[in-house]
């Protein structure tokens, strides 16, 4: 990957004021960690490889980042989809962000959100979850309901309700999350069985038609809960039922939040 070009582009954007902050990644003791570059001389620290899994778009939720717009973000295809989706949900405009687009081994250059949309549709239209995730979903679907319930009871018993999954997700930008309301108490705050089940399933539901399967939540989970099994399953159902994939069209209406005459009804039994 042409990392040198990425660094040069970051420097140029900072120098000419197209961005006042670059959010990307740097190496720290052989780990890929988020980097916040505010001046050109710091841009040499920027790096990128496939271990850079954090979704940089999640930082756009922070007021201290929003107030420094325009911000440049290093973004891989799933993160680019997050950005296009944020635009579709009226959270971002083309003037707010510049994208230093990466994908596989390629650095695509500095793009606006509109360019990013074009790039995604041209070159990344067939993004799919990890083969491992799909295989595991298949394995779960082949189980009986009891076996599946036992699987999730075991996995979700580990949840400590730290909400790292929510914090790492760019689409979880509600100023007051459903789990923070107790009038009424939608979700038990206790880090045990039914509260954990409710939290994780409801978050997956709130992401229906909004999850770009970036995997940042699963990577964020300190307990190693396989969250992508939930999110990828829901994403598949939305795709199969409504033919929709989020983050490819900034003009698209939200799938769950809108009604279309063509919507099928075969799930009504």
């Amino acid at each position, binding site marked *: 990957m042409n990392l040198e070009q990425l660094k040069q582009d970051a420097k140029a954007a900072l120098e000419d004021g197209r961005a006042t902050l670059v959010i990307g990644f740097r190496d*720290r*003791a052989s*780990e890929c*960690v*988020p980097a*916040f570059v505010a001046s050109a001389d710091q841009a040499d620290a920027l790096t990128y490889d496939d271990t850079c899994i*954090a979704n940089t778009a*999640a*930082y756009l939720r*922070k*007021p*201290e*980042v929003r107030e420094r717009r325009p911000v440049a973000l290093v973004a891989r295809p799933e993160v680019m989809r997050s950005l296009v989706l944020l635009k579709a949900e009226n959270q971002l405009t083309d003037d707010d962000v510049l994208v230093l687009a990466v994908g596989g081994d390629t650095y695509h250059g500095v793009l606006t959100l509109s360019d990013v949309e074009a790039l995604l549709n041209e070159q990344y239209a067939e993004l799919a979850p990890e083969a491992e995730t799909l295989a595991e979903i298949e394995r779960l679907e082949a189980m009986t309901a009891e076996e599946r319930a036992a699987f999730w009871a075991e996995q979700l018993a*580990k949840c*400590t*309700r*730290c*909400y*790292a999954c*929510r*914090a*790492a997700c760019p689409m979880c930008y509600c100023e007051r999350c459903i789990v*923070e309301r*107790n009038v009424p*108490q939608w979700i*038990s*705050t*206790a*880090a*045990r069985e039914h*509260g954990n089940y409710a939290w994780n399933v409801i978050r997956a539901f709130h992401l229906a038609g909004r999850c770009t399967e970036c995997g*940042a939540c699963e*990577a*964020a989970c*300190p*307990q*190693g809960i396989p969250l992508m099994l939930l999110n990828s399953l829901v994403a598949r159902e939305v795709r199969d039922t409504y033919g929709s994939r989020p983050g490819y069209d900034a003009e698209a209406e939200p799938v769950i939040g809108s009604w279309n005459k063509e919507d099928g009804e075969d799930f009504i039994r």
Partner: protein
Amino acid sequence: MKLIDASQLDALAKTLAGAGYRVVVPAEDGDVVRYAEWSPEVTIRTDAYPVNSVKDFLFPRSEVIDRYELVGDDFVPKEVTPEAPKTALLAVRPCDGQALAMLDTIFNWDFEDDLYNARREATTVVPLVCTQADAQCFCTSVGGAPDSSTGADALLRPADGGARLILDPLTEKGEALVEAAGDALAEGEAEADPPADVPVRFDPEAVRAWLDENFESDLWDLLSLACLGCGACAYACPTCHCFDIQDEKSGTEVVRLRNWDSCGFRLFTQHAGGHNPRPDQAARWRNRVMHKFTYIPERFSLPGCTGCGRCARICPAHVAMLDACARIEEESKKAPVHES
């Protein structure tokens, strides 16, 4: 001395379980290692860092502290007995033992926490000396050590190049555990291996001195920028002890819960009237660092952070306490900027 083959920790766990202990060990779970209750299916892993701490077993992440039943028009209180099973924390890290000194103090400071104390009384702590450390460990920078026996009832020490473990009882509870271990332990002699080399990375006094003078520093914005405001660090931390009380109902029963809380959450200091004295992540992160490195040391003459590095290992944004302290120490060496 009492000895056991390093590969026979399972056998020791099994014997102790048979003697009535709830045995907690560092257990493998896919890609993570987590302190969990031992059972024959568990694989004990002493080579990796657990994502949780022993506080899970003394101060659970959620517990019922009060229970009421609606009978007619009245709320009738129901008995709540704290679960305090006889527990052995086996092959935990010395930094966990170190943390207990602080938790014991906090939970008996201005109020004696019966729930914590009941469990603490029933718990025997058996750390395993570390012969390896990683880039996030900094116990030696905060008055700890990889072979610390602080908070330990008995200490496991690797010997003979890691092939065997020496078990030294240090307290009455430790003696009782050694006795309960019976034949799982052999008598003999072995040469203890040197503990891990954990270089000192910063001077906590320099950090504390800077913290006491720099509440308003711009450095807090920089240090906190990567923080996403979740609770992962506070929950993994062996010394973090803040909690939230929640009342929840189910049918005709109301339970009062004590749940873990994190000062990283925006809601932590949100007032009912709308004001938030820690309105941004910089203020919240500042509180975290100050708590660990000046408020606790000042009030209790104890380190508020044991340098275990868990927070850094599990943080989704890779924010590291060690980095923050090193940066603060660096800052403390610069000429002071006086604001008038």
